[in-house]
């Protein structure tokens, strides 16, 4: 009894210490983001922070965000995927070909793109998992192969325009009422979840955090959700692409925290041998990571084609680098075993903000390259320096 309470006490103290430390890490990133936003806000006379630009920005970051989510899993599992950009281009191209040339319905086309992406994921995952060829090589090969297939299939043509229903995926907004509805729903779920979690911990005899902290967090998150919804609703509403991203993010955060598959990925990336000896099927799980990445690339392809209302031969070129950068900025370790979806999304937002802000400021092209390169290094450095 006595013993029990001792552990609980240290547990509590540490828990606090830990969550504070964790938050500090997350905060560094968020602080970097806020600084960047403020900087561009000032430089553009506030335009950067206008409802309209926030709406643009969120649509602009959507494609990269979708693949970054998959890339987080890939990197956490200890691999890398250089073929994503090509696969986005290829699946987007196939989607356009099926609709524009063959008259498929939008729904069928989306299913096809995701399925084809997943199929190529199987191909790559098989080589990596069952043939032990380094992912770097398999996906470097994939980068060439997928681009080649796209050039062959499309004969180099730009394929456009797509049906209206297809176009809407990347270019529509959620009606204001529904937007607010969703926002309030998420706030409600957040509160409900916290209450349940506290009750659950209590019933198991575990320490419960002071309600100030727990509900303080809930309040901050709720405020953010409502504010974001309000800002976007001041313009046309929540853009469909970012809604898709948020939806995916929730699913994948859930997968990574709540399912054995998610946990296994971290174990595999952290120490494959120990994972294998713990009864984890390394090959099958690795294969699935690549299948998921492929499926997400398919979805991203659909989004990109829809946004442009056209598919081009070099669509998606080099997107993998942006996606990997988003992961690393967000704290994912290229050694595997460590990384968070939310961090990655903040990373993607930072990258998109840099591009967006500089283009708003009309900075000369060569300066854009240089500044983006520097900010990339600095952002990661600040994060690292702070973790120490």
């Amino acid at each position, binding site marked *: 009894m006595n013993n029990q309470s001792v552990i609980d006490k240290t547990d509590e103290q540490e828990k606090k*210490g830990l969550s504070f430390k964790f938050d500090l890490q997350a905060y560094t990133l968020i602080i970097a983001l806020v600084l960047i936003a403020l900087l561009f806000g000032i430089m553009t006379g506030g335009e950067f922070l206008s409802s309209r630009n926030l709406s643009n920005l969120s649509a602009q970051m959507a494609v990269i965000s979708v693949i970054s989510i998959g890339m987080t899993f890939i990197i956490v599992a200890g691999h890398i995927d250089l073929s994503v950009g090509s696969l986005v281009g290829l699946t987007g191209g196939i989607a356009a070909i099926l609709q524009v040339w063959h008259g498929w319905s939008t729904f069928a086309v989306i299913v096809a793109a995701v399925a084809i992406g997943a199929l190529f994921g199987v191909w790559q995952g098989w080589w990596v998992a069952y043939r032990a060829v380094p992912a770097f090589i398999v996906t470097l090969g994939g980068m060439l192969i997928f681009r080649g297939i796209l050039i062959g299939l499309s004969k180099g043509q730009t394929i456009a325009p797509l049906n209206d229903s297809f176009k809407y995926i990347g270019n529509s907004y959620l009606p204001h009422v529904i937007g607010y509805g969703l926002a309030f729903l998420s706030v409600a779920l957040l509160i409900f979840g916290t209450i349940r979690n506290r009750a659950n911990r209590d019933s*198991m005899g575990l320490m419960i955090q002071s309600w100030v902290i727990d509900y303080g967090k809930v309040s901050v998150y709720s405020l953010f959700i409502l504010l974001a919804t309000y800002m976007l609703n001041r313009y046309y509403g929540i853009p469909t692409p970012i809604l898709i991203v948020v939806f995916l993010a929730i699913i994948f955060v859930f997968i990574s925290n709540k399912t*054995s598959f998610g946990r296994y990925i971290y174990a595999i990336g952290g120490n494959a041998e120990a994972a294998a*000896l713990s009864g984890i*099927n390394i090959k099958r799980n690795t294969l699935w990571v690549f299948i998921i990445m492929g499926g997400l690339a398919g979805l991203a392809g659909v989004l990109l084609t829809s946004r442009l209302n056209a598919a081009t031969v070099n669509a998606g070129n080099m997107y993998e680098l942006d996606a990997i950068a988003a992961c690393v900025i967000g704290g994912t370790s290229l050694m595997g*075993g460590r990384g968070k979806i939310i961090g990655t999304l903040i990373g993607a937002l930072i990258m998109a903000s840099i591009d967006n802000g500089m283009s708003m400021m009309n900075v000369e092209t060569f300066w854009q390259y240089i500044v983006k390169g520097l900010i990339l290094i600095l952002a990661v450095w600040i994060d690292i320096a702070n973790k120490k």
Partner: protein
Amino acid sequence: MKGITKEFPGVLALDNVSISVRKGEIHALCGENGAGKSTLMKILSGVYAHNEYSGKIVINGENVEFKSIKESQDAGVSIIYQELALVEDMTIAENLFLSHDLIRKKIINWNKIYAEAKKWLQYIGLDLDPQTRVGDLTVGKQQLIEITKALTQKTEILILDEPTAALTESDVEVLMNLLNELREKGVTCIYISHKLNEVMSLADTVTILRDGKTISSDPIEQLNEDKIITKMVGRELTELFPYEARPISTENVLEVKAYTTTDNSGSKVSDNVSFSLKKGEIVGISGLMGAGRTELFMSLFGKFDGKRDGSVIVDGEDVNIKSPAEAIQKGIAYVSEDRKRFGLVFGMNITQNTTLAALNKVMKVNLIDAALELRRTMDLTEKMMLKAPSLEARVEQLSGGNQQKVVLSKWLLTNPKILILDEPTRGIDVGAKYEIYKIINELAAQGVGIVIISSELPEVLGMSDRILVMAEGRITGEFSRDEATQEKIMLCATGGDNLEQSVGNR
């Protein structure tokens, strides 16, 4: 070293520790896991630079402030780290001389290095080609290389941090002789070990640390094992092996018949092995380093690449286990001898490591329940008396002994019917050992069949109901608790051929 204080984020590892070592003596440093022994030695060897701790270091009357490992090396301090510090992809020769002047030269003369390496290997009694890749050696041999590496330095102070954890008795003897030789040559040694018999036979002085504080420093004459233990643990520990005679069921939980494994290159790894394990029985497996014990049980656990023959019966059911997942499903758990490589996922926290092999035990409707996960982990780790800042701390922040407890917890969570423990107390302090033995007893009493593979004879003798001896992949002897003696076991372990008969006759 005077008034040394060292703090890690959240942990005060050393609190005003002082220790003085006389020239040319062997000075033992004892203490529980996490007492701060390794940390103190890392300070002495410059791993933590002089601005990362407070306190003073005086060597030969001179105040020193090492800013780097190289500076301490140049001052004649060399250290054998607790965790192996070898580059697996490099050869023995390269590893031996990595920090040596022979390699620091502008242009390296490899032939000279190979010749030198060969000399050293012979000196320490290792029959190895200096151009062998270190990664291809067993942990035990790697440990010997690590020791040799320190010897090649021009050393005035030699620090050995648990050098014998992975060594078998015979190698320990080689090392003891070596250290005695060095003492005669006037080299000062600081020796850290949890094996108190070594300490008693070797040391001139013993300093004891507890919770980062110096408890005492006495000449060996004034000490005995019990006294050391009492000082270390802070209470009295009367018996080392809390063996309890229990009624053992007659039911076999594991039966292995004519089991032979052949690896991909065609050589036999396990050779016609037959044995059985009863419910609630503790079987000790003894043997020399490289006897094939680890490989036998790893392959029974489903981790093996080549061909297998013979039959394995678990709980009355003929099984063909092809992967650890299947083994776990059949109720087998295997605690590896190499926890860094096979046991823990660094980067994950204690809780996540504990539940890794039995996630289904902390899931509700197929989803991980964080609260349940924490509860289960807490229950287990409390029983083990795990010392950790929190259950959400990363495992790499724990001391070695506590890491081992996490691995044990992980396997206990799978609720095994058969628990295989490969060197379960390697690097663990007496107090913790005692706790682990108690857990083993408890499990046996609950009917779990337990296999203890151990290179420490006293452990095997002290804990087992029955003892099997292995040599060259075969079982060369079998003894009941009462018949077994050190001598009999060593005989079977070295040249058991003639004894095989007597086993067969039984």
